[in-house]
């Protein structure tokens, strides 16, 4: 009941005209930018971070959430009509959705994606509202050793467990950790790795890293693969509405998508990639006519899209309740909080009740707005897909540079942006994942703080992490999550399947 009360209070905050306006602007901007080909939701958030600099915290964070969800809706439109998944989580959507669009069923594909996202987002937000306070209650009893264990677990799952290569994932994470060490040490005030450069004392900025890795890296990578051939856009032909048969095939897929997406998203397991691909596989197994898969099966859009949105909402559980970002986008949201000096976590639920519950309530409103915005206006959004590549990437780079300059008007910061861009380009070329690096930069300093606090409390006894049940369990799970993929690989090789 207490939750219901808080949620109603949040709703009263979220429907204040000003906050409604921010939510509206957020979803509009998010859709606008997210629909541009090759731009993922996390990049959308990173690019639009400076737009929210000067607003009041509650409105700005609500706008931010709108941008996040808008970016996801926009990305699925791009995946369906252009076959350009902006991120790994839309790959499944691109497979089936684009086939549907080519078969003249683009309308129902977009509809099942949008309605499924709305449905999943709403249920997942309810779950978030129910689950977050429980976790907050639990987290109040956490010591620094528990937080450290939790962060180590997040490091491992994000970088090693689900990627294509354990080594490349951890290398990416380690680079993020190294960047996190740059600057003034928060506990003693000593400068690390700054080499007397004043610009380095503040450390590497998360926004600069994210925009560099994602926007610049992507632009450089696309340029290096440029062939002069424009991708073809599928026009939305035929009816926009789903038939009774489409509904019948979609609703179960949506439900299963939520069931997969929310729990996996809420665990510190690294975002929406895993549940969307799992959902795709399951829908394929359960489908009445499995041979339709690969040719445009609506279940293959409905399930993964619902899973994607539910997982995205799920990642907000550890973010809001523990202050633990477990995906690149969650890391960007955390950066959004930090620009107001707000620290997500158990305390935020006490000190900023209005903000937290207003934000959660605004997810409902944002999702509803997006449904209204996306379905009838899809023809308008499609026009954006026709922006020629040269203008698109020119615009992206100008906007990326502008965002960095607005946050910190120095050419040094811009040079860092370009350096990160080149890094992102190389990492793309060599198949290193990008998200662990961002999470490493944002979580690394937090983990270090907890580590040192734990050792201070234990008077320097390094066994403190194993003497407490919570942290010992978490570290054991982390060790298992690190070793498991290696073991499975070894087993596969023994069986001779790993050709």
């Amino acid at each position, binding site marked *: 009941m207490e939750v219901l009360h808080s949620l109603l209070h949040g709703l009263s905050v979220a429907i204040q005209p000003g906050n409604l306006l921010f939510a509206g602007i957020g979803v509009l901007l998010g859709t606008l930018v997210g629909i541009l080909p090759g731009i993922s939701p996390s990049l959308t958030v990173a690019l639009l971070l400076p737009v929210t600099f000067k607003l009041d915290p509650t409105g700005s964070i609500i706008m931010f959430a709108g941008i996040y969800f808008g970016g996801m809706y926009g990305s699925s439109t791009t995946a369906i009509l252009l076959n350009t998944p902006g991120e790994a989580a839309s790959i499944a959507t691109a497979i089936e959705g684009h086939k549907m669009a080519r078969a003249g069923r683009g309308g129902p594909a977009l509809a099942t994606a949008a309605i499924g996202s709305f449905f999943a987002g709403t249920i997942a937000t309810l779950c978030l509202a129910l689950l977050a306070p429980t976790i907050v209650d639990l987290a109040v009893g956490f010591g620094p050793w528990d937080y450290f264990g939790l962060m180590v677990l997040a490091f491992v799952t994000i970088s090693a467990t689900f990627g294509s290569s354990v080594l490349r994932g951890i290398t990416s994470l380690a680079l993020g950790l190294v960047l996190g060490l740059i600057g003034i040490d928060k506990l003693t005030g000593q400068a690390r790795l700054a080499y007397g450069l004043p610009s380095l004392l503040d450390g590497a900025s998360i926004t600069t890293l994210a925009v560099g890795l994602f926007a610049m890296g992507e632009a450089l990578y696309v340029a290096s693969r440029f062939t002069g051939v424009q991708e073809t856009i599928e026009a939305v032909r035929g009816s926009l509405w789903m038939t009774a048969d489409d509904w019948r095939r979609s609703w179960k897929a949506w439900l299963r998508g939520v069931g997969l997406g929310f729990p996996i998203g809420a665990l510190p397991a690294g975002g929406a990639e895993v549940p969307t691909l799992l959902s795709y596989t399951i829908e394929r197994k359960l489908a009445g006519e499995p041979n339709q898969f690969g040719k445009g099966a609506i279940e293959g859009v409905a399930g993964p899209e619902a899973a994607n949105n539910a997982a995205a909402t799920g990642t907000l559980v550890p973010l809001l309740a523990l202050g633990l970002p477990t995906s690149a986008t969650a890391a960007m949201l955390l950066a959004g909080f930090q620009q107001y000096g707000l620290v997500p976590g158990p305390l935020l639920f006490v000190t900023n009740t209005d903000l937290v519950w207003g934000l959660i309530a605004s997810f409902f409103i944002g999702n509803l707005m997006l449904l209204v915005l996306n379905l009838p206006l899809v023809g308008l959004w499609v026009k954006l897909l026709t922006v020629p590549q040269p203008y698109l990437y020119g615009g992206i780079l*100008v906007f990326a540079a502008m965002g960095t300059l607005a946050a910190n008007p120095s050419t040094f910061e811009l040079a860092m942006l370009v350096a990160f*861009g080149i890094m992102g380009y190389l990492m793309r070329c060599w198949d290193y994942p990008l998200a662990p690096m961002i999470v490493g930069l944002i979580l690394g300093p937090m983990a270090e703080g907890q580590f040192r606090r734990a050792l201070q409390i234990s008077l320097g006894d390094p066994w403190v992490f194993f003497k407490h049940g919570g942290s010992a369990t978490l570290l054991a799970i982390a060790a298992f999550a690190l070793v498991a993929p290696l073991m499975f690989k070894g087993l596969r090789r023994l069986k001779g399947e790993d*050709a």
Partner: protein
Amino acid sequence: MSESGPPAGPRWQTQCGIGVALLLVAAVLWYDAGRLPRAPTVGVGPAAALWLVGGLVALLGLAHFVTAWRARQAGHTHAGDRGNHTSLGIVLAALVGQIVLLEVGAGFMLSSLWLFALTARGFGERIGPKLLGIGAVLSIAVYLFFTKALSLALPSGPLERLLA
């Protein structure tokens, strides 16, 4: 940590290079750690994390040598596709040029116009009145929106002073 099959991961020469780079990073971290004063009496000081992360990076560097060795055994010696170096070079020149322009005080709009036009050139667009027109409108619109509507400071040059 095996990378089997040529398409996954870079070729072995590159992997060796990455390994060397990682060892260098580890050396830098350790050097910096040695420079910091000793730890306080209770707990660990700011150097501990440098030692730890340095150790991790060094370990990863060594692991890269191992995988490079395996990739070499597997005959993974050729890079996949060479890519379009001209386009890449032009976009890089656009980015570096923008920094240089800002450094000499050309202001946000001029440097943005340069960045936009040259990037578009990298993506195969001919530099002509249309491209420059779009770039100019974009730069001015972005500048006005951020300085007037959001009151954020962007670097100013001769053009910006005209508008102010």
